[in-house]
């Protein structure tokens, strides 16, 4: 598997320093997977820092793990300080969580990585990376890698792939989505991997849910996927992790990015691009809420 040796050394050195100086108790990064690629790793001891790696296989968005670090494992103790390795798309999720007051900036040390795009285990570049022009994270405490001059790629229309579905007549579009949802096994991997999905009890998993019961059937799957997409409007950072982890290959990015485009058209807003104090849908301007 391709490892970027110089950056791997820098990540390890950074982790060693942070852990040895007790600045953080844990570094969330990537390690070599026994299956060949990279996988998430949690380093608690400076002597373990050499497990960390960096390369184009580091495609997971680790920000979802910050939710596990919001409280101390021991009752009565302060939440831990942690460091996290973040690509540009991941860093946008950090901004979203900061705005939603899920994490505290001073407890998170962001090891920002200059990103050239990631690839799957066959070496193919993810479509999310092919249409992404961001090379530098939007928030970081240290930046590793050569910061390029301006975006190294230009993408004409990042939403071009949406049109195939949008141009279908409504009944055909419904059939398309029902056919996709039919394969869903309601494993919730899309929700679990999403940094923006952090409700303690998901409204689609409540024992007393009014809208959807526990059945793994088409109506419940239909409501779940549309509901989840709507709950991410103005919050989705287009990391497409939901689509990557789906064991049944549902094209979930098409749903989420339809709403990303909507928010951009309406409010000129892309979630997490800037550090903001308030989530978009909570903002009240002179004319009231933007919606």
């Amino acid at each position, binding site marked *: 598997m391709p490892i970027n040796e110089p950056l791997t050394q820098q990540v390890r050195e950074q982790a060693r320093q942070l852990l040895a100086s007790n600045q953080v108790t844990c570094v969330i990064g990537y390690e070599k*997977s*026994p*299956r060949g*690629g990279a*996988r*998430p*790793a*949690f380093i608690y001891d400076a002597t373990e820092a050499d497990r960390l790696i960096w390369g184009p296989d580091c495609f*997971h968005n680790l920000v*979802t*793990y910050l939710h*596990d670090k919001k409280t101390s*494992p021991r009752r009565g103790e302060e939440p831990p300080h942690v460091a996290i390795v973040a690509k540009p798309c991941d860093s946008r999720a950090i901004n979203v969580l900061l705005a939603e007051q899920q994490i505290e900036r001073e407890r998170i040390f962001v090891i920002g990585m200059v990103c050239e795009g990631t690839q799957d285990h066959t070496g193919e570049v993810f479509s999310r990376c092919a249409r992404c022009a961001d090379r530098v994270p939007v928030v970081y405490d240290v930046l590793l890698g050569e910061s390029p001059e301006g975006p190294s790629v230009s993408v004409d229309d990042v939403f071009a792939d949406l049109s195939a579905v949008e141009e279908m007549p409504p009944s055909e579009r419904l059939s398309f989505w029902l*056919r*996709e949802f039919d*394969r869903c*096994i*309601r*494993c*919730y*991997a899309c*929700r*679990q*991997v999403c940094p923006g999905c952090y409700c303690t*009890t998901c409204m689609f*998993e409540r*024992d007393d849910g009014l809208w959807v*019961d*526990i*059945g*793994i*059937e088409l109506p419940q799957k239909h409501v779940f996927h549309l509901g989840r997409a709507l709950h991410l409007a103005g919050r989705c950072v287009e990391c497409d992790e939901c689509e*990557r*982890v789906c*064991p*049944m*290959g549902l094209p979930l990015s098409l749903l989420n990015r339809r709403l990303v485009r909507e928010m951009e058209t309406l409010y000129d807003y892309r979630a997490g691009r800037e550090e903001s104090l308030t989530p978009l849908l909570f903002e009240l301007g002179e004319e009231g809420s933007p919606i």
Partner: protein
Amino acid sequence: MMVATLNGLQDWLQDLAQRYDLIAPCNVDGHVLYRPVASGDEVLLDYERPELSAKDYFLPATEILLQVEQQGGQVIQEEILPDRKQVIFGLRPCDAHGLAAIDALFLKQDPVDRNYAHHRARTVLLGLACPQMWDGCFCTSVGGAPDDPTHLDVLFREVNGGYGVEVVTEKGESVLEGLTLKERKGKPSPSGADAEKIPLASSQEWRSLFGRDQMWRRHGERCLSCRICTYVCPTCRCFDVADRVVAEQGGVTHIERIRVWDACTSTNYRRAAGGHNSRPTKPGRIRNRFFCKFCYYPEDFGALGCVGCGRCIVSCPVDIDITEVMRDVAGAV
């Protein structure tokens, strides 16, 4: 060895689809899944390992256990079970092995699981041997083999110029009517014999490592708490039960009692009345999942809870690898 020709097999499958509810591996929008087929043409013969096991046809992802009609003080309950015979063709030997593992609890312990027993009794298992071990497979390490006929009714295997047919049970024999077989000399060569063996620790050895918190944290902390591994698993059989109102018409309330797959990896699996969750962390849940397979289930019900199909390995989004855990456990005792 009895051999059927490809054409003979296809004609027979065509006929089988008319006579029974036929389930077989098909291509569903690019995914190989065991699905009901209306015609023999849909049946795949050249495929790796279907992405989901066949447990859905014995322990459906959602099954209606009971239909209830309530009118005033009067309550009518009706249990419904399909009565048609079901034939699964192209079942991989590991999936049949998985059913044997579920049998250990649902059939061999009291009380017998009524619905599961019904589906088992009405189903004929026609296996198709894997020509090789696929990515992630380790069936030969946990008592199986790519061409193991043990838990099947009939085992088919691709041989030069056709399909070898090994009848295992009378139940299997009964559906072969119409399939032309010719005797041929020689025996098929076994497959998977040279596959690498993953060390298998005893349940006692597993027990001795329960308190290795560091080790379980290392394996479990990256878990997403999704349900992929348990839902793709041919032996995971946990379920939840709920009642739902489906219609209210003319003073009559129609209620269904459903049974739905559940997963020990999910956050709230262990949540009890009052809200306490006795397994609140990812490492704790991951440890439980592996202990269930290699310690609790074998001790309590006499069967391993893993058949080495490898689905959980290839489908885990964060590369939690059951064989890595098995090696670690065997290496640590």
